């Protein structure tokens, strides 16, 4: 193999550069297509990176050597959601009871519909169990799946697909329900589609993003409690 190419495959620079470039191209495509839902920046960015990896033969581990620096920023960026949340302090206090009730109902619908549909099409039990915590962020979902007897890495795949589906549907849902305010849109997005949905909601407004981030965090807690309960309810 060409030594220069070999160096590039093993250098953290490549994964970092590739991720930034893929995202930049995804942004440009999204703007060119006037924000068409299928040009979602996470989806297109992922597809471009995956295409580059399979064309060059670079493994995911080699890619992550550089990409982990971007992945690492996910933590502090999530903490930064406290800023738009505080800017909505009055809205939050006014609707606290409504928000908490919605959270429990929405969280339950997410787990039950996934579980019942999975049973209906006859998914194998470990696959089904891995799907139950789909609506929360990856680390929580992996922990819950393991606890009830699912496969953590499959749970992570379900989480990412759910986030992308939710983010892609948001524009269409917003058009279907034009009288829903940004608090409602954001909060529902956070319950259904966690962080990737939150990233999409932030593109609409800071308020939608803040409430999506709040719902994403709290739904992790609700789902951790509800998944084992639903499992015993459905005799899984």
């Amino acid at each position, binding site marked *: 193999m060409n030594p220069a190419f070999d160096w590039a495959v093993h250098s953290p620079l490549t994964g970092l550069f590739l991720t930034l470039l893929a995202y930049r191209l995804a942004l440009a495509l999204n703007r060119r297509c006037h924000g068409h839902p299928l040009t979602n920046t996470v989806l297109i960015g992922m597809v471009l990176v995956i295409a580059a990896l399979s064309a060059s033969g670079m493994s995911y581990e080699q890619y992550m050597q550089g990409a982990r620096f971007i992945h690492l920023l996910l933590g502090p960026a999530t903490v930064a959601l406290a800023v738009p949340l505080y800017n909505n302090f009055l809205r939050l206090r006014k609707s606290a009871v409504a928000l908490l009730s919605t959270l429990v109902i929405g969280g339950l619908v997410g787990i039950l*519909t*996934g579980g019942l549909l999975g049973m209906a099409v006859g998914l194998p039990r470990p696959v089904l169990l891995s799907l139950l915590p789909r609506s929360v962020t990856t680390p929580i979902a992996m922990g819950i799946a393991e606890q009830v007897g699912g496969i953590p890495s499959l749970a992570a795949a379900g989480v990412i697909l759910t986030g992308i589906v939710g983010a892609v549907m948001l524009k269409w849902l917003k058009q279907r329900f034009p009288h*829903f305010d940004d608090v409602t849109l954001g909060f529902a997005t956070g319950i259904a589609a966690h962080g990737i949905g939150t990233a999409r909601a932030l593109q609409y407004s800071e308020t939608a993003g803040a409430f999506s981030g709040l719902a994403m965090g709290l739904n992790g807690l609700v789902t951790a409690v509800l998944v084992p309960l639903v499992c015993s309810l459905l005799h899984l």
Partner: protein
Amino acid sequence: MLNALIWLLGFQLIGELISRSLSLPLPGSVIGMLLLFLTFSVRKTIPDHLKQTAPRLLSHFSLLFIPAGVGIVLWRKMLQPYALSLFLIIVVSTLATWVVSAVVLHVLQNRHNAARGQS
């Protein structure tokens, strides 16, 4: 920028320590977000450096999900046999979760506002 990073990483670090020592089902970053929100509520203000940095960091939040998303290639073989049913379940279930959540919240908020208007 420097002060903002120290604040954000510090709050995440505290969150991670709390999450791990109490084995909570919440990730450290989410606990950090809630703690930072509480700090703002007590101080009744947001420090200027965070007011400036947070929106800039969040404007490219989507970028930060690409590395984890690319990880889906690792499970391609495992997912393939159920690809269609998994996809349909995820679409229907995500749609149902969103619509139920949004409608419930919309109705509850309107009822609350109506009750407030009458009193």
